[in-house]
């Protein structure tokens, strides 16, 4: 069975630009979460979506937005990119919402903002 997939693998953008990252969950999983991981730190929670509704949001500015589609795939959008947005963006899927459910992570998208 395919795991969580993310695209693209790497991305280079310049300050002020906008970026869209994509995530496909494991088949049957209805919950998708997004994390930002800056080099040398643990992942920071950005969003969780379940059944196409936002279930949780971390301490990130409104420049960050996300959505979940009917097939449970998800997109993360970041507007007006800053240098500090350079990070590994991780997507995780789980069967349902709630921290009791194991999250399965994708390989991540490495975003570099110049």
């Amino acid at each position: 069975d395919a795991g969580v997939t993310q695209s693209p693998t790497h991305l280079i953008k310049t300050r002020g630009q906008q970026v869209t990252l994509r995530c496909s969950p494991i088949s049957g999983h209805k919950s998708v979460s997004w994390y930002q991981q800056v080099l040398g730190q643990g992942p920071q929670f950005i969003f969780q979506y379940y059944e196409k509704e936002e279930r949780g949001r971390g301490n990130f500015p409104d420049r960050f937005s996300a959505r979940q589609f009917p097939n449970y795939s998800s997109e993360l959008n970041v507007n007006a990119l800053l240098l500090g947005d350079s990070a590994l963006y991780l997507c995780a899927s789980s069967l349902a919402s709630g921290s009791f459910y194991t999250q399965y992570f994708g390989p991540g998208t490495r975003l570099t903002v110049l």
Partner: protein
Amino acid sequence: SQQGEEDPQALSIQEGENATMNCSYKTSINNLQWYRQNSGRGLVHLILIRSNEREKHSGRLRVTLDTSKKSSSLLITASRAADTASYFCATDGDLYDKVIFGPGTSLSVIP
């Protein structure tokens, strides 16, 4: 601020030795999880321990949880070079659907 804090930040051991990593957290939790990450790639789930459990085993992994001290430990026995990775503990946060990761312990196993 982060809920979990791993200790030590970095650990270097010889192959075959045991590795112990600790995690402390601040507020009450429903469960605690440990993850492994190789070279900045995706995280791999290792084990979940619920707040009413004290110890769990999975292969060479042993996790303990002491809710009175708000701490957990991960023991890897008979370490291998392939265990070289960063290890993170993660707890549920103030929101039911939120998972909070600590800064991680970087483990190096020397062949």
